[in-house]
């Protein structure tokens, strides 16, 4: 029997060991290792979340017995549990979906794309789990780099000139972002002699060194999260990657740097940034919603439309900063709403990109203008696409509805009605770009659609399953989640 806290280590080390093993094994071994890691990783995520749920207390693990500030602690609170479960679900679905694409036939020389894909999938997972669990800002820097180094090759996996250029642009943005983040780490260490999140939260006072550090780190992380106006790298990168990789990047990778921002603002330097700064972040988020949605409306290609929709949906997350800052009831509702938006978008967007991938495979193109009658030719895929779209629009019953309703209620409850206006406009715009795809597809064209390739049923089922998950998230009650609250108030008292 493994001690529950040891699971935190395994959550990071299992996919890390997967990377090493898959590279050592090569060829067909890589996929087998990845499948084992997916199964094990899901079990670990469930076990951690179950422990938190049943005990109602956060978990922590001190690596090597070296307590912070000298050593590093891993910590799992309610937010970590939510993110562990989300990444396990989405990565599991992506892994199963990608088995048809990244095949290494028996007895043939090792192929490039499958080996790279499976290794990078586990690399992304290592980075994500490290972001969810690491309790130290420098370890989080290494975790961010794990994400970058495994995300960039996924963008250029197909080796086409445009995607190579998109990958290089992404890399440069991400590098500036991580160095700015590291600069903030240096300042904080210089000020307080520790980078442990809990210790910092006790020591940090509102003084110049903290302000500069927080500003630099937030700017760097915003570049990695593609917050408007630093979003330029995202659409070509996410639209150019192969479908399974796009799903991974849009659903999870950009969320890593966002959660790190949340950890900084709420856990490690709570109450340092004033309301003005929080309003500014949400204003940038609002601009992202409007600009991203309008640009999504104008795209000719499906995958680019979905990528711009990611820019918009990321914007909603930034309402967390002004709405969830304090400790009241509305704030707790906003906290659940913001994190639910993140989870719902992750699940829905992964389903949507995979659906787009199947559409592209079936038609041989992804021009929205050529979608007439697609609903009859690919009913399951279009149904899944529509279900995922409901979540993006915020229609009930869907995860997106629950999240947006909570954010909307909280913003009115806190007297910040202007964010409610943006949320509603964003929903309308999302409906606009979704129906631009769905209307011709469901209406049917003059001639029946000729499919270039057949799509296997299991792959359609995976996409539909994930889209249904996005819908099921809508069954969540419209009140603060108890699991998500675990560790929010007690975390400061827990470190040894």
């Amino acid at each position, binding site marked *: 029997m493994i001690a529950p806290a040891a699971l935190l280590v395994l959550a990071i080390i299992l996919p890390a060991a997967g990377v090493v093993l898959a590279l050592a094994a090569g060829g067909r071994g890589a996929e087998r290792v990845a499948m084992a890691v997916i199964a094990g990783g899901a079990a670990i995520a469930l076990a951690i979340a179950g422990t938190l749920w049943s005990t109602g207390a956060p978990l922590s693990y*001190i690596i090597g017995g070296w307590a912070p500030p000298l050593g590093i602690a891993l910590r799992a609170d309610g937010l970590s549990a939510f993110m562990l479960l989300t990444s396990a679900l989405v990565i599991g679905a992506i892994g199963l979906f990608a088995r048809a694409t990244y095949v290494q036939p028996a007895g043939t020389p090792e192929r490039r794309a499958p080996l790279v894909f499976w290794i990078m999938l586990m690399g992304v997972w290592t980075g994500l789990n490290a972001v969810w669990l690491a309790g130290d800002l420098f370890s989080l820097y290494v975790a961010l780099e794990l994400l970058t180094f*495994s995300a960039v090759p996924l963008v250029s996996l197909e080796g086409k000139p445009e995607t190579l250029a998109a990958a290089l642009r992404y890399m440069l943005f991400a590098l500036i972002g991580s160095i700015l983040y590291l600069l903030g780490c240096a300042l904080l260490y210089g000020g307080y002699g520790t980078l442990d999140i809990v210790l910092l939260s006790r020591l940090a006072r509102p003084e110049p060194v903290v302000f500069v550090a927080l500003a630099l780190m937030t700017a760097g992380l915003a570049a990695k999260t593609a917050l408007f106006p630093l979003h330029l790298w995202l659409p070509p990168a996410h639209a150019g990657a192969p479908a399974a990789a796009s799903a991974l990047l849009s659903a999870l990778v950009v969320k890593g740097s966002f959660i790190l921002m949340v950890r900084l603002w709420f856990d490690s330097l709570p109450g340092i940034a004033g309301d003005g700064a929080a309003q500014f972040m949400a204003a940038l988020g609002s601009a992202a919603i409007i600009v991203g949605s309008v640009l999504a409306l104008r795209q000719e290609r499906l995958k680019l439309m979905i990528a711009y929709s990611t820019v918009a949906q990321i914007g909603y997350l930034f309402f967390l900063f002004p709405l969830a800052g304090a400790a009241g009831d509305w704030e707790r509702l906003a906290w659940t709403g913001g994190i639910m938006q993140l989870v719902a978008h992750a699940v829905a967007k992964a389903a949507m990109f995979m659906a787009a991938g199947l559409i592209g495979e079936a038609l041989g193109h992804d021009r929205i203008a050529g979608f007439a009658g697609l609903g009859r030719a690919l009913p399951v895929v279009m149904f899944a696409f529509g279900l995922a779209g409901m979540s993006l629009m915020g229609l009930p019953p869907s995860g997106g509805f629950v999240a947006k309703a909570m954010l909307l209620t909280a913003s009115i409850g806190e007297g910040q009605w202007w964010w409610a206006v943006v949320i509603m406009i964003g929903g309308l715009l999302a409906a606009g770009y979704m129906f631009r795809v769905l209307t011709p597809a469901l209406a049917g064209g003059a001639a029946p659609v000729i499919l270039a390739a057949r799509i296997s049923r299991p792959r359609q089922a995976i996409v539909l399953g994930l889209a249904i998950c996005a819908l099921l998230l809508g069954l969540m009650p419209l009140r603060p989640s108890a699991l998500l609250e675990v560790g929010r108030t007690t975390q400061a008292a827990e470190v040894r």
Partner: protein
Amino acid sequence: MSLALLADAALVLLVLGLAFWINAASRAFPAVVGYVAFGLLLALAWLRLSAGDVAMTEAAVGSGVTGAVLIAASVRLRSAETEAPPPALPLRLLALLLSGLVTAALAGLVLWTTGPAPSLADQAVQHLPGLGMGNAVTGVLIAYRALDTLLEKVVLLLALMGIWSLAKDRYWGGIPGPSRIQPTNGALILLARLLPPIGIVVAVYILWVGATDPGGAFQGGAILAAMWLLVMLAGLRDAPAISRPWVRLCVTVGPAAFIAVGLTGFALPNGFLSYPDSIAKPLIIAVESVLTLSIAVILGLLVAGPPERQP
């Protein structure tokens, strides 16, 4: 102003002058050469800051191996280098304003916060005897913050995989780098035969001495990588095909050993990545030796680039 401070000031001026020149040089190749010199000067600055371990890493990795990658790239891109127009003036001014603000804020903080900074040096030194170590930096890397070091090894593997992923499909499993038609260069071949044995001795020494003095797995690995690259440059050995089993084994054995030793820690009271008191030092040296081998091969292959030829 003391003489030592004057020397520091001169070093700082040289470093900054080179930095500006690297930004301003009209062509890439001289800028890259300037960057190598910059890295070496920076290593001196690290010595002045009493950070011998960092100085060695900066000279070997920050300046040396990075320089090798950048020089090779600038040579390959030289013929195609075009004059791209810089961004419009308002954008340049905005960038100037932004970077000026950051510099001013950092400079202000450096000047305003005087006196000793909070430090973990006491704690770090206090626990070293239990590890059988004398070098606190090695202690931090291999024990106190071993998780970072372990994840950094995974970053290295992912970077290598990322570079390999840029191969064209038909060259997958092939040999890195463009084919070299070697003009026989007697002097270089002689040196490539003469230096590696010495380099290997030095690398082992640096690895070994890292337990007590500046040095360690990374610095030793970088020297080994440099020796290997020299042999490849002289044309004595071609780069290995990346499908070779020994290549896969060498790059993964270090990280795998590190993870395995970390996991055996679960059997000890202090858990993951802890070392048993009695054999801490030999165990750490053993892990570091295997890591040195992996680091050397990974660094060499990172410089060699993606496969561009069939095996």
